[in-house]
């Protein structure tokens, strides 16, 4: 993979290779895992496990067609969480747009890294009496620009590195967001299903109430109570179905396949609560090392420092034009020799320019510092959110749901002994379903918090879901 060099997206996004990358690369593909590994070398292999997803910078119709075929295949197979990320990486126009900014950065780099163009100077001066003319030829170039070319090239390369890091970051974020959208769609679908069961129980309780009413054994008050409970449950179920539909649309939009007619076929189940959470200690420091935007900001600081160096170096001699001139005078006699034009920094000593570069580098530094604070904040609040989400998920999944199941069982037993009426076990089951809905939402929130932490810490291993939770309502 590495030997195929700049054909690989890895090189285009990595920036740590020192290679400027080939501007002629049109089509960069890479196995996703490898891409992210080299993009941020400290990420473990399980960043996005096993499943290889291609990242394609589609720059022509042929590339689009190839990608479209793969997207069709993936959609037809059904979309689990891994495939959601793969499809997004292939199909998302947002990611393609990000890649195009990489193209612009590369163009900027090319222009900055080129040697100054030579200037040809031609003059013809005719004598007043018409007796011949003087012709001057000159070939000069900006010597200072030529001299500072290596320095400027270095700065531009660093800038390009930053752009590559940003592209890699976009890949990371897209992979995380695909997981998030998939999780939301999946949990919304599960909640809609539980709501449907809830409403179905409401309907049955209402029907049973109707039978009691028909037999003359239930007063209007109790009958209407069952009716309103049912209607409320039905409306709530409809709302949940709408939410599930929207969540699926949002997933399709994120993956970039919303225009397709077939609805996204969701696969998978709500992931269970994992054994433990990532350790809190040192995670901020790790985030500051791992996060690609932090690395990009660091590149920007380096580039601005390099540009400041150039500005300082050219302060004494801001402009130096050198070259050769040849003169042919009216008599046809030729003379030649070197030419030099020197700017004397008498009035404009480039102090403004140097000050501006100074300010630029300080700006880049302050922005990097500010970003570091944001990173710390994001990691801390994500850690806190995760801890809270775990407590909540444990409460619902380990305590409330089992307790509700016990209540359903006990109520059913008491109904069997005619200690309770028929509505009690049905209502108890409805309350158990409410608890299951809360537990699904709590698990979703846990994994959302974990994705938030993955984003905040730049540690994609946190975005890997645990195996599905066993569904209690069967």
């Amino acid at each position, binding site marked *: 993979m590495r030997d195929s060099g700049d054909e690989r997206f890895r090189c285009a996004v990595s920036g740590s290779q020192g290679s400027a990358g080939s501007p002629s690369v049109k089509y960069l593909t890479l196995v996703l895992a490898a891409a992210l590994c080299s993009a941020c070398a400290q990420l473990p292999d399980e960043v996005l496990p096993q499943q290889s997803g291609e990242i394609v910078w589609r720059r022509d119709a042929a590339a689009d067609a190839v990608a479209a075929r793969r997207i069709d295949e993936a959609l037809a197979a059904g979309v689990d969480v891994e495939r959601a990320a793969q499809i997004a990486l292939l199909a998302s126009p947002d990611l393609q747009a990000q890649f195009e900014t990489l193209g612009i950065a590369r163009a900027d780099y090319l222009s900055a890294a080129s040697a100054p163009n030579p200037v040809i100077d031609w003059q013809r001066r005719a004598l007043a009496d018409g007796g011949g003319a003087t012709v001057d030829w000159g070939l000069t170039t900006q010597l200072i620009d030529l001299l500072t070319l290596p320095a400027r090239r270095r700065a531009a390369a660093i800038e390009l590195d930053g752009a590559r890091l940003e592209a890699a970051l976009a890949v990371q974020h897209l992979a995380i967001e695909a997981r998030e959208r998939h999780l939301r769609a999946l949990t919304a679908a599960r909640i809609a299903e539980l709501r449907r069961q809830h409403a179905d129980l409401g309907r*049955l309780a209402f029907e049973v109430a109707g039978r009691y009413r028909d037999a003359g054994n239930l007063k209007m008050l109790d009958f209407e109570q069952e009716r309103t409970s049912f209607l409320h449950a039905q409306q709530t179920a409809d709302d949940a179905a709408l939410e599930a539909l929207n969540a699926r649309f949002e997933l399709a939009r994120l993956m970039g396949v919303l225009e397709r007619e077939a609805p996204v076929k969701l696969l998978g189940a709500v992931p269970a609560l994992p054994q433990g959470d990532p350790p809190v200690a040192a995670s901020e420091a790790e985030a500051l090392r791992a996060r690609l935007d932090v690395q990009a900001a660091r590149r920007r600081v380096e580039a601005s420092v390099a540009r400041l160096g150039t500005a300082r170096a050219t302060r004494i001699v801001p402009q130096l034009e050198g070259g050769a001139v040849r003169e042919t005078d009216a008599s046809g006699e030729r003379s030649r020799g070197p030419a030099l034009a020197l700017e004397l920094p008498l009035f404009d000593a480039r102090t403004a320019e140097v000050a501006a570069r100074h300010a630029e580098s300080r700006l880049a530094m302050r922005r990097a510092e500010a970003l570091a604070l944001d990173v710390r904040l994001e990691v801390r609040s994500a850690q806190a959110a995760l801890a809270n989400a775990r407590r909540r998920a444990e409460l619902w999944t380990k305590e409330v749901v089992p307790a509700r199941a016990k209540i359903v069982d006990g109520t059913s037993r008491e109904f069997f002994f*005619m200690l309770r009426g028929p509505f009690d076990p049905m209502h108890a089951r409805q309350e158990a379903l409410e608890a299951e809905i809360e537990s699904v939402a709590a698990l979703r929130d846990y994994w959302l918090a974990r994705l938030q932490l993955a984003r905040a810490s730049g540690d994609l291993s946190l975005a890997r879901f645990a195996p599905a939770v066993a569904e209690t309502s069967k």
Partner: protein
Amino acid sequence: MTDRDTLSRRQLLLAAGVAGAAGGAGAATDTGPARAPSSSRAPLVTLNGRSLPFKMKGGVKEFHLIAEEIEHEFAPGTRIKAWGYNGSTPGPTIEAIEGDRVRIFVTNKLPEHTTVHWHGILLPNGMDGVGGLNQPQIAPGETYVYEFTLRESGTRMYHPHADEMVQVAMGMMGLIIIHPRVDPHPVQRDFAILLHNWAVHPGTYRPDPSVMTDFNLWTMNGKVFPMIDPMVVRTGQRVRIRIGNLSMHEHPMHLHGAHFKVVGTDAGRIPESAQWPMTTSLVPVGGTVDIEFTASLPGDWAFHCHKSHHTMNAMGHEIPNPLGVKQRDLDPQISKHLPGYFSMGEHGMAEHQVHTDMSFHDTPENTLPMAMGKGPYGNLEMGGMMTILKVRDRLQSYADPGFYEAPAGTRARRVSQDPNFKP
């Protein structure tokens, strides 16, 4: 009296189920319950119970009651923490003879103070046992002694008169039977029953003393049908049933197969001129009723409280009435959400016992089916205050003889299955 009537004491104990139920603190002493001065007096049978042993000390009968927390079982499937005496509720029956001087030690092993009131006995005021009024309460760990002379014969009771609401609800009670020195109205079978009600919410293990009227278990001597011993009698015998009531409800006790007279209360024998034949007698709260009759008809005769909810066990009383409600067709749909769900009671509640007997469903915690009991012809569909008077022409012992076999032509029989049958 025929020789067959004088069964051995051991047989009697077995017949009364005493051998199995004994084991309280008082059971180990060497002397038995009061013996009749003449062999003609029938031994007292406390259904599912026993009599408290005593010792003679200087012409005084000494008894020892221990008030304590106990484990009690109404029937297999319900166990509670109750309070009682000498290991049981009701406590053992105290038997004595008119004119006896009795000394009764009362040791309190309860977590709160108690007293014993000797219900219906005329005695010195300081022995009457109303805590705070007649004596200081007996603190936990303390022993008090009561001593008095029994001036009258008849059926009496004992129970605390200290925190009575709680202690009676928890099961603290017992019977006192004072035999006449010479019984002018001898019987061959003499049974003693103490009625009680309990508020044991299904799934709990301790009676709820705050319940005032909504009791859910109705017992004779702490048991529910079919765990209540039958009363086994030979045809032609004179039978006495002594019924005390320390529950919070009156019970119209009804006997099949005989006409009886109420011959006594907790205040003694009723003059013959004031007795009249009956089949049902209301046993008042805090009172006793002695009935006597001749068992002239052989067979299995129900003896029960006529409040039909009192011959049932715990059930919901505020559930929607399922009678006549057509809902079976919804069961398959509902069982998708609640496995094993099935509706009950459309045609009546008799099917309920079929379901519970067959264990169609898991049973709830610590409660009994509302109806139990099996007879030779099917389910008895009762619980609570019900037992059977078993009258037989021949008996080897007073052990349960099994169910009566009606002679040919003396049992109701089916003659048609056509609903439009016209005789």
